[in-house]
């Protein structure tokens, strides 16, 4: 019934468009407007994809409620058919994306992942950069929604598609942060360690170092955290994130009860980066260190 109504509607829209075109042609003949420069005529596949995307956008604007399931199912059927019909066309990537989004809205996650992978394959055929950007955007969206398990699967897919280069470094770093958020410290440490091993001077290296310190501290591996932070401390005073590294190093020493090392670390941070946002924190750290130490030493009589 619905299909018939939709087909009838579509037929009516086509007739109306034809009538409009005819009317426009008649008017044009009457007024003889100046000829316009037109771009290349969109292919039928492109038009079909645009229509699918338009429908998807309208549906997503309405939401993903239960009442909309039928319309999502219909769009999914149409998008699947379009993807099959235009499989050879690079524009078919959009149909795979529409399928993936519909599956996502319908809660069909394995189907969604398969469709998204087909979408990425289609994009790769067109442009690797576009594929990488789509993977980054999708994984960021998943992490923002804290769909961390799905994000890790997508990042592994990205690593498979881009086994080397900056995309791989980014994917590995992001995989590590996902593991950290999931409290999988061993996996996180492995991912960050790989980033530091393969791209020690890369743009993600300092961030990876800070996250790796967090993973080590969460596991109680204070000595490894201190050694790693000390090794990665840049020599240049104006190196980015140097103050954060100095602060984390002092805190790692404090947590490992190396109070003298922590005191020296806090003082070094204040001396070398006095305008850093970490400097007031380091001053308070010294005061806390002093208070903790004296409390501990004077209170041990009570034990």
């Amino acid at each position: 019934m619905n299909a018939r109504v939709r087909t009838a509607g579509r037929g009516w829209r086509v007739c109306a468009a034809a009538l409009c075109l005819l009317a426009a042609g008649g008017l044009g003949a009457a007024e003889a407007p100046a000829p316009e420069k037109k771009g290349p005529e969109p292919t039928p596949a492109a038009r079909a994809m645009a229509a699918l995307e338009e429908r998807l956008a309208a549906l997503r604007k309405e939401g993903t409620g239960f009442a909309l399931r039928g319309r999502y199912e219909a769009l999914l059927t149409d998008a699947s058919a379009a993807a099959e019909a235009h499989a050879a066309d690079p524009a078919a990537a959009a149909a795979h994306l529409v399928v993936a989004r519909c599956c996502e809205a319908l809660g069909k996650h394995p189907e969604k992942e398969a469709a998204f992978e087909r979408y990425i394959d289609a994009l790769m055929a067109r442009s690797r950069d576009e594929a990488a950007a789509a993977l980054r955007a999708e994984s960021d969206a998943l992490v923002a929604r804290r769909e961390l398990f799905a994000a890790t699967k997508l990042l592994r897919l990205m690593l498979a598609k881009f086994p080397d280069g900056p995309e791989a470094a980014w994917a590995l770093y992001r995989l590590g942060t996902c593991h950290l958020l999931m409290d999988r410290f061993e996996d996180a440490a492995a991912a960050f360690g790989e980033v530091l091993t393969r791209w020690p001077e890369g743009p993600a290296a300092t961030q990876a170092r800070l996250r790796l310190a967090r993973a080590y501290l969460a596991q109680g591996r204070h000595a490894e955290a201190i050694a790693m932070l000390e090794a990665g401390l840049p020599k240049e005073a104006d190196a980015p994130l140097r103050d954060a590294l100095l602060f984390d190093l002092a805190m790692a020493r404090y947590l490992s009860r190396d109070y003298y090392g922590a005191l020296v670390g806090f003082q070094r941070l204040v001396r070398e980066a006095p305008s850093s946002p970490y400097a007031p924190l380091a001053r308070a750290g010294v005061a806390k260190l002093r208070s903790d130490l004296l409390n501990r030493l004077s209170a041990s009589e009570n034990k």
Partner: protein
Amino acid sequence: MATDLGAAEAALARRDPGAAEAAFRRAFEAADATAEQRARALDGLVAAAIEGGRAGALAADLEQRRAAAPRDQQAALLAALVRTCKARDGHFHAILPALEKDTQTAAPAARRLLQEVQAGTAQMERSVKRLGAELALAAEQQAREAARPKGLSRLTRPAAVPGVGQPSRPDYAVQAQAYAPPPRQRLRVPAELPRVPLPQVPRARLDAPQAVTKPPAWPRPTSARLAAAFFTQAYQKATELAGEGLVESAKAEYATLMQLFPDTPQAQQAARYALGLFQRERILAQGGDPLGAYLQWIRAVLGPKGSDYAEHLGFRSLAGDADPAVLAREAEEFVKRYPDSKYGPGVRLQLAVALDRTGATPRAIEVLQPLVSPIDDEPRVRAARILAWLYLFQGEAAAARGVLEALAAQTTDPDAAAEARRTLAALAANPLPKLTIAEVVGAGDPDEVFSARLLDLADQCLQRNDGERAVDLYELYLRVARESQGFRAVRDRIQRIKRTGRADEE
């Protein structure tokens, strides 16, 4: 002095009350006797006098001494006088006027004693009255029995009322009949009795006599029993009063015990329980100055003589939450009052830390310096460690090195020596920068200041969309700020951020 007391107690133990009394009297009158020794001597003196039957003379002697004694000895002398009078007279009546007179001079010890004695006297009077009534009844019955004529039954007795004749014998009077026992049967004894073997009983073996352990000389059974009984009573009353919310009255119960039996284990226990009442008040009041209140109370209860143990209890239990200025003031007072107390080093450490917190670090160093030569026991080791750290926080690395080297060389504590050596090695490998940033944070609890700054920085990172760094700092907060105010709410917020990526609840 200690040997005199020991000799006196030995004399008392071998039942030589004359020698014991003389020795205790010498110890009591010695000019260099401490308050504790004087109390022991007075206690022994009373015991020896009672043992020797000289309670009357001692009572008169104690009366004279009370007239000339300072106020801090009045409570002990009064308690001794009560015991002596009871031993002399067998009752408390004689001491009542003296106690009533002392009560008028607002002596709390005398008031308590008077109440106890009055209670005891009333009980005794009731007992004596009951005994008198019983004796009178017994005497009356005895007299009635004695007045009754002997050998006459109810029937043969002459008529009590004249004119009424004797009752006649009834007809059914029993007639006595002779009764002959049956003849005895003769038993035939066999010529030879069968032999029955006797049971074999193991013979007792004489063991070597076992050594008898004599009870210790102190506390003597009399005073210990008295103190224990009084303590039980005071504890029950105080618990009841505290349960009804009458905390001040409960404290007064313990105060009486401490005044009556100073320097006894019961007094120490009473001080501990009283301290518990102060701690309870602190929890209920959510603040205040429990340390100052407790020390003021204990000094008022025990007078100028005081008790270093009871005051030290306050420092041990209440110093953690005390205001550093108050703690420094009270600790200085303690050090002045009890310069030779065995709790002195511990209180000095707390004094130094409190002075450092109030910003008087040089004065704190002055307080600690006498404690670190030599570094031979545990409080001195701790003093040396604190002193070294104070030097480090002041930026005086050379002075810190000197203290740490002395600590490593002199202490017998292997852990402390190892830690000192580690710090020395760290000092050599990584010299302390000259910059000192100790007092830059300003007023406020350092833990709270650090926690607040850490949280602020993390929130700033979150607002800059640097969520990963924000989570780094939040994780650090969860590790180091467990004791800070509002920790639970912040922890829940951090968990929410980690779980949903958003700080708000929706």
